[in-house]
């Protein structure tokens, strides 16, 4: 078995691959579910119905999609430059912390002032956190996969320190959380739902990023640097400065995701601002990759993943299935897309055993 380069990339396959990948991952996950004695069809139909079958379900999907879009856009931008920012989870935590810090000053004012200040606090904290690995990469060529990832653990412990310690609400009965935010620090919600203004922010930023990517000179520089670093350098582009700028935005957006989670959903800083079984920051990596590095794609995939979260939580409660299937399905989809992408560029050729390929130089892999 070997791979042969196709003369032309198969257009049809390029659209078919994601669809088939989703189906295949559901099939594999069904096998896992069967092995524990659960009924996969019942589980899937319950998930689908809960997530997209009711208006309440749809609003909850948008709630989950909000931090995913923000983190996903940030990660996508970094990936576009081939900077492996897998630290969105930590940047999100720092953003939540930075936004909370604004509230913890004791300020209780108008939302017109407090919300922008918290957004700034969240963005800045996430951005600063992301600038550490960016700076180390630019100055010392330190592997950013490892630094961004390890800083996630540090950021989570940082938040834990504050909610178990100095910021702990004295009347929380020992629960690690801050007091509830004053009304001025809460994001506006759509009446009767948990959908909040953060979703609008996320859409606006997606539009802005689209224009930056497609229409600006800087967006062009990022694409060139990611595609061919040598050409970028030859053209006089400053890769180091671009890495710092990209990470500033990337971390800032993840920070903003943390801000909207505390200000729009939790209304306080607490331990699980990101679901433990499938953290937003890690899902964002999958989203950025599946979205083909396209901002619209990020929005679309985030909404689908939001559906997976809502569905997963439902079957956890109603069918007692481990919520881990959310993570499993996500990862399987990505694996199938990875493999499928190769098949849209190469053709799989089977050689009959014993028969040598006509040109030895053509056999590979």
């Amino acid at each position, binding site marked *: *078995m070997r*791979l042969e*380069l196709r003369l032309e990339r198969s257009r049809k396959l390029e659209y078919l691959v994601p669809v088939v990948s989703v189906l295949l991952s559901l099939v594999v996950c069904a096998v*896992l579910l069967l092995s524990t004695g659960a009924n996969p069809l019942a589980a899937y139909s319950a998930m689908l119905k809960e997530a997209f079958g009711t208006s309440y379900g749809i609003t909850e999907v948008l709630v989950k999609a909000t931090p995913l879009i923000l983190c996903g856009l940030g990660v996508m931008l970094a990936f576009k430059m081939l900077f*492996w920012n*897998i630290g969105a989870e930590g940047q999100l935590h720092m953003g939540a912390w930075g936004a909370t810090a604004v509230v913890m000053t004791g300020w209780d004012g108008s939302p017109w002032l407090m919300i922008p200040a918290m957004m700034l606090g969240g963005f800045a904290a996430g951005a600063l956190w992301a600038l550490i690995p960016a700076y*180390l990469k630019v100055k*010392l*060529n*330190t*592997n950013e*996969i*490892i*630094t961004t*990832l*390890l*800083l996630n*653990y*540090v950021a989570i*412990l*940082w938040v*834990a*320190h504050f909610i*178990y*310690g100095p910021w702990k609400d004295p009347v929380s009965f020992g629960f690690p959380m801050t007091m509830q935010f004053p009304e001025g620090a809460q994001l506006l919600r759509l009446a009767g739902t948990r959908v909040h203004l953060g979703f609008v922010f996320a859409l606006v930023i997606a539009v802005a990023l689209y224009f930056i990517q497609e229409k600006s000179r800087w967006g062009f520089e990022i694409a060139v640097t990611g595609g061919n670093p040598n050409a970028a350098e030859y053209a006089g582009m400053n890769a180091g400065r671009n890495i710092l700028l990209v990470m500033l935005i990337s971390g800032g957006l993840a920070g903003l995701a943390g801000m909207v989670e505390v200000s729009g959903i939790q209304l306080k800083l607490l331990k699980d601002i990101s679901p*433990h*079984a*499938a953290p937003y920051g*890690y899902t964002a*990596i*999958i989203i950025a*990759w599946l979205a083909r590095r396209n901002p619209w794609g990020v929005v679309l995939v985030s909404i689908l993943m939001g559906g997976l979260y809502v569905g997963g939580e439902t079957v956890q409660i109603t069918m007692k299935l*481990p919520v*881990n*299937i*959310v*993570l*499993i399905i*996500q*990862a*399987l989809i*990505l*694996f199938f897309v*990875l*493999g499928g*992408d*190769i098949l849209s560029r190469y053709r799989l050729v089977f050689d009959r055993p014993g028969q040598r390929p006509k040109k030895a*130089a*053509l*056999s*590979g*892999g």
Partner: protein
Amino acid sequence: MEASPLVLVVAVLQAAVRSGTPILFVCIGEIYAERSGVLNVGLEGLMLVGAIAGFSVGYSVGNPVVGVIAAAIAGALFSLIHAYVTITLRADQIVSGLTLTILGTGISGFFGKPMIGQVGPGFDQIAIPGLSSIPILGQVLFRQDAMVYLSYLLVPIAWWVMYKTHLGLAIRSVGENPATADSLGVSVTKVRYGCVLFGGAMAGLGGAYLSLAYTTMWIEQMSGGRGWITLALVIFAAWNPARAMLGAYLFGGADALQLRVQAVGIEIPTYFLMMLPYVLTITILVLASRASMRRRIGAPAALGLPYAREER
């Protein structure tokens, strides 16, 4: 409770070896994979798969050794996904590895649900007659469990195979210049598959150490970033199995220290202490990247690059 400083230091060093051992296993495996040119950033997921496979089998059979063997097999099988996707299909190694971590986290959590709260069989401490009575050193190194002793054996063997055998030469040449190795009759595909599977088995062992020796239970996401820490230590070790030992125990020392300092009651906030192993790893990585910039000791030249004969 007052303990003399020396007793305390010995206790910390002994704990450092214990704490460093799972990482040492993983590190040796990853050095082999990377030496052959395949980066596997899925170690965290592989460790978790090893930890749950080792624990469930060890628990149901009632024998930790069987659990460890199962963990190594599970690690190897799970890493087969990465091998197939990156070697045969030539997909991006980083994305595949990241996905492997996410999948491993999900699968271990899924199958681990019924194991939460169970206490499994574990490895007992064995004092090696004679050696264990050496002052300090004997206490630190030779009052450990069987898996620690296994790691003592594995390090020199891994070093010897890598630098003194034909196999090691083949592995290194495949990682440095696969086209040349290929033209000399070395099968790039076979060597890489072998190294990735070995790396997976070792990561499985490292995971099993956590659930069968370091503790005797399964906790969701119990690897706590050790897979990622290992990736940094591989760079620190300059892809040399012998140096991996130093790095692993250094990390183990930080881990052991933060636990002891808490117990002694020194006034540093708990969560800052818990950051110590991660911060130390980042520091080590920064120092290693400075050193490699100055002395130009680099990664294997073909690390991360798929090999396609026809595109040579």
